[in-house]
């Protein structure tokens, strides 16, 4: 094992034939694999072995893919660097000494290091796109409801989707073809994408494509990142696309809305970890509440505790209207803004991350600084839209990602546009 990419290295063989026969896939460790440990990067689930497969895992093995391991991640998906994993940080194969991004950092690193052909991550506020950008690979965050979440350990379930990584857009699209599609075991499933063909859409044809560039998503971004971004837009223009600037005033409030909603959902979703049915046991005498609180003190890391507590606070009596209700207003506003901008453009483009990859250890002590780094990715999750991150080039030797955002179930359009660059 190199760079601490996998938490568990174990092969799960797929069917002999299928569209992914002969391909290897790394699976983020919050996606359930029957009989293979699934830890969510947490001490709480260090020894948890799911008794069933997630729908996406069934679809992978049915399609002939071989799963080669469970990839490292920020604990329960909470982080932007893969440094909050109980199993240690992952190094970035594309920029050694730097973080691979998060929370699906192990999955992106597996593809970047050639440890797997493809990978699955999950994206609650950018957790596929951020590590794709930092590791110089392709990552797709699908439209909410396109990919089943059955068997994905929930963190912020109104926001998160499982998404594919690949070295090329066509590879990531081929994996999306396999995992997408409605599933009766997921109550939020949608059927609109059932007849799509994603890999076939990777034609590289952007002639006549109209690109909207939200000015707010360039403000405050690192200068080298912005230069690299415009170089990529120039290349799309050379191939027949045209761009215009658009304004999304609501995105100024997307980060705080995202964190209030995600933390509130986390405080509820993580209540299931009581150390009785599964997970680390308090193993203490005394009453239920004391044993429960002790198990959670020992099982959860700092970032998880921080989010559970802030979520509990935001939902508590007297603060619900001040935080949670306002965050829902902001979410509706973001959706309206995107609808309007996408009525005048085929896709929207921005840097995926406003900054190049942090050095390992650089940002751990300042949670607010890390939350602000998610400014360009979280609006997409609030609006339930699809987005793709593709390598745009480098600044000071560090990878920079370009993000394209499309309308709901517009994955084929995004893949066509992105395939002009990667």
């Amino acid at each position, binding site marked *: 094992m190199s760079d601490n990419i996998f938490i568990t290295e174990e092969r799960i063989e797929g069917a002999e034939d299928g569209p992914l026969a002969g391909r290897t896939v790394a699976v983020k460790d919050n996606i359930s694999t029957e009989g293979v440990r699934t830890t969510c990067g947490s001490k709480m689930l260090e020894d948890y072995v799911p008794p069933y497969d997630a729908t996406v895992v069934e679809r992978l093995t049915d399609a002939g893919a071989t799963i080669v391991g469970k990839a490292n991640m920020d604990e329960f998906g909470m982080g932007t660097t893969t440094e909050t994993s109980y199993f240690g940080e992952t190094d970035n194969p594309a920029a050694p000494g730097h973080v691979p991004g998060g929370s699906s950092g192990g999955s992106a690193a597996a593809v970047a290091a050639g440890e797997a052909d493809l990978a699955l991550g999950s994206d609650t506020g950018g957790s596929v796109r951020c590590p794709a950008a930092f590791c110089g690979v392709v990552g797709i965050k699908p439209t909410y409801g396109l990919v089943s979440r059955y068997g994905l350990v929930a963190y912020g379930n109104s926001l998160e989707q499982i998404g594919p990584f690949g070295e090329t857009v066509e590879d990531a699209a081929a994996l999306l073809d396999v995992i997408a599609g409605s599933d009766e075991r997921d109550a939020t499933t949608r059927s609109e994408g059932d007849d799509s063909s994603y890999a076939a859409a990777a034609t590289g044809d952007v002639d006549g494509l109209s690109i909207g560039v939200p000015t707010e998503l360039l403000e405050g971004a690192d200068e080298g990142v912005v230069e690299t971004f415009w170089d990529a837009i120039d290349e799309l223009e050379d191939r027949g696309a045209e761009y215009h600037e658009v304004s999304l005033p609501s995105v100024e409030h997307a980060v705080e809305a995202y964190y209030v909603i995600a933390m509130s959902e986390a*405080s509820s979703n993580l209540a299931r970890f009581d150390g009785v049915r599964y997970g680390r046991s308090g193993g203490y005498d005394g009453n239920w509440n004391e044993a429960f*609180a002790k198990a959670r003190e020992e099982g959860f890391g700092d970032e998880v505790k921080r989010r559970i507590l802030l979520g509990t606070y935001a939902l508590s009596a007297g603060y619900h209207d001040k935080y949670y209700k306002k965050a829902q207003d902001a979410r509706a506003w973001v959706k309206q803004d995107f609808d309007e901008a996408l009525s005048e453009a085929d896709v929207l483009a921005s840097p995926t991350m406003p900054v190049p990859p942090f050095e390992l250890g650089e940002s751990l002590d300042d949670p607010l600084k890390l939350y602000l780094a998610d400014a360009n990715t979280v609006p997409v999750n609030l609006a339930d839209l699809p987005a793709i991150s593709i390598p745009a080039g480098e600044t000071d030797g560090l990878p920079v990602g370009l993000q394209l955002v499309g309308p709901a179930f517009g994955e084929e359009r995004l893949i066509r546009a992105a395939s002009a660059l990667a």
Partner: protein
Amino acid sequence: MSDDAVSPEEVRHVADLARVDLDDDEVDRFTEQFADILEYFETLDEVPEVDRDADLANVMRPDEERASLDSEEALRNAPETEDGYFKGPNVS
């Protein structure tokens, strides 16, 4: 820092509600961090009221029996079991 920044007592209270024990160092650290983070969350006050799509509907499936985990599988990850049940601490 905003006027109603959280106090260490409030952090302890919320931790009680969330059933997460904290040691004294964690209380101090979270108190400081929560002041910054909650102050930032307060910028949500600038968000205008927005008409929301109200077309939410409950998603129900037919109330029919279907296969599920058997009890052995369901109990496999439990730290303690007894006679086919989960064994937990006293409720009160």
